[in-house]
């Protein structure tokens, strides 16, 4: 089955089995390894990416559903050699420790910054993303810092 999809602005033609997970296609076939696998069963949010403007768990998306779609992963956030403001905030505020949840966390937070009306607060926006290192507090601080930066700009 030939499938074309766009990842971080680049077009790809792949021929995986139709039920192969988008996560595996990203990591194995296309070498976008920024997206991580945590639980592999849709619970932890480590594999979060944005597909056609919607937040998805890539371990729960068979590649056949991604045909013709635009996928943005953590690698697609930084532009012109400059970190995304969320990435900068995570760096400065200690929002990242071991790094496994971080890509999904930042993608979900980026989605929240773009769509602030869809969640009541940062806690709800990141409710689908689990972290075992930080205790979340510094993640929330990082997102808060990035969002205040956003409102000034």
């Amino acid at each position: 089955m030939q499938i074309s999809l766009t990842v971080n602005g680049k077009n790809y033609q792949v021929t995986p089995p139709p039920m192969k997970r988008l996560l595996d296609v990203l990591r194995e076939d296309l070498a976008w390894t920024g997206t991580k696998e945590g639980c592999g069963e849709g619970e932890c949010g480590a594999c979060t990416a944005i597909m056609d403007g919607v937040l998805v768990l890539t371990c729960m998306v068979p590649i056949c559903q991604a045909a013709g779609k635009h996928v943005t992963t953590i690698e697609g956030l930084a532009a012109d050699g400059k970190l995304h403001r969320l990435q900068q905030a995570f760096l400065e505020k200690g929002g990242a420790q071991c790094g496994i949840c971080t890509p999904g966390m930042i993608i979900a937070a980026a989605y929240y910054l773009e769509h602030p009306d869809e969640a009541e607060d940062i806690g709800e926006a990141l409710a689908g993303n689990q972290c075992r290192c930080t205790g979340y507090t510094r993640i929330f601080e990082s997102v808060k810092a990035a969002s205040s930066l956003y409102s000034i700009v």
Partner: protein
Amino acid sequence: MAIPGKQVTVWGSMQCPYYVQKALAPLFGMEPEQIRVVQTETGGGFGGKEEYPNMIAGHAALLSWKAGGRAVKMIYDRREDMWATTKRHPSKTRIKAGFKRDGTLVVLDIDLLLDGGAYPTLSSVVLSRGTLHAAGPYKCDCTRVRGRVVMTNSVPYGAFRGFGAPQSIYAIEMHMNRSAQELGIDPAEIRRRNFLHKGDQMPTGQVIKEEIDLEMMMDRALELSSYQRKRSEFEEFNKRGETHRRGIGLSVFFHGSGFTGSGETRIGSEVAMRLTAQGGVEVLVANVEYGQGTNTVLAQIAAEACRIPPDLVEIHQPDTAAVPNSGPTVASRTTMITGKLVERASLELRKRLREPDDFTTAARQYLAEHGELKVTVRYEPSAEIHWDDETYRGEAYAAYAWSCDVAEVELDLIDCTARATNFVSVVECGRVINPLLAACQITSFPLRPMCRRFRSSLSSFRIRIPVPIRPKVSVRCPLMGRRPLSHRLWLKR
């Protein structure tokens, strides 16, 4: 990848590459040098990747051997991971204590029992740390601690953040609370009357040589949490008999840094450093970065000791073919032990370059004239530290961290949930190398056992968080017991 008799190479997520090498050598009947172990990005560690990667590496290497040397990759899915890898030891502790009427502790008899699961793993070492932390930060001249670990038909238990100490600390702290209740003394007061001070002896005979002011730490924690006011407020609130109950409690504890007793002497860690073509240095250690900041802290230490900017410091990937054995990345030892060795190696490099004002230029000059410069330093046991494994007497740990935590909880009697509504932690952690990373560790430490998800805001040493402990959580850790916390509380009411 395994080609028997020739070479075995393992890449993996692990905390201790040299442990894996040591485990694989007898498995293949080869010399340790023929086994190459490379740490790849580890993700989180928390002790779960201390010793268990030996098993996974062994299985993968054997499969590769069977497949004639072809590369084999092993990944556990979530369920396999839960079945096979190590968890924290469940524990049961019985404590008998004798107090004078004024709350002075005179006798302490502790019996600590750990569930070791079906395999030996690191149970004996976990038990050792649990035993050494069992008496808490209290002065008692007549203490007996009995520690046992028993084999059961359960999943394997092993290293996990705190390594046996949290189980013991929970027990002694609960016992202090109950004793306070029996004696009609405030829980903070009974602790204050028994704190260890400089010059006091711990149960192993270790005399505390550092200045430690637990009274001051506890006062600060009580002040930050408005402990006294809230205690009476909550008592009033609970009397009203609404659907919620509120409580506030505290704990005081110490934690030994580095390996227990003569562990560091036995490991004899080695650290190497060499000059780079850019005029900087490369640090060669087997200690692993898994989010706790190893690479940042070691780079900071090397940069400061060599007097160069931190971006001229490179840290080599932990790879047994390239780095010396600087010991495992466990037991809060990396900054303390490896960090000190990095400092010594840096100073040695400076000495070889004849204490230059401009390290970078001198390093480039040296490389052009003489070729490579690499120094290796080895851990030297301090003459002041003696430990006897037979009698369990002596200096159990070279240094201790001290802490006082105050937690507030709110119970919802209708939906069976508990929320931590405030948390204050005052920590004496010695000399901090990187304030941000240290704060990250301290804030995450109390939150981990309390929650899976919550909403929060906090400043570094003061945490205010409503934490829903979901009734479904049934983690086998001493803070919660085998049954979910909320269920237990419900039944007790």
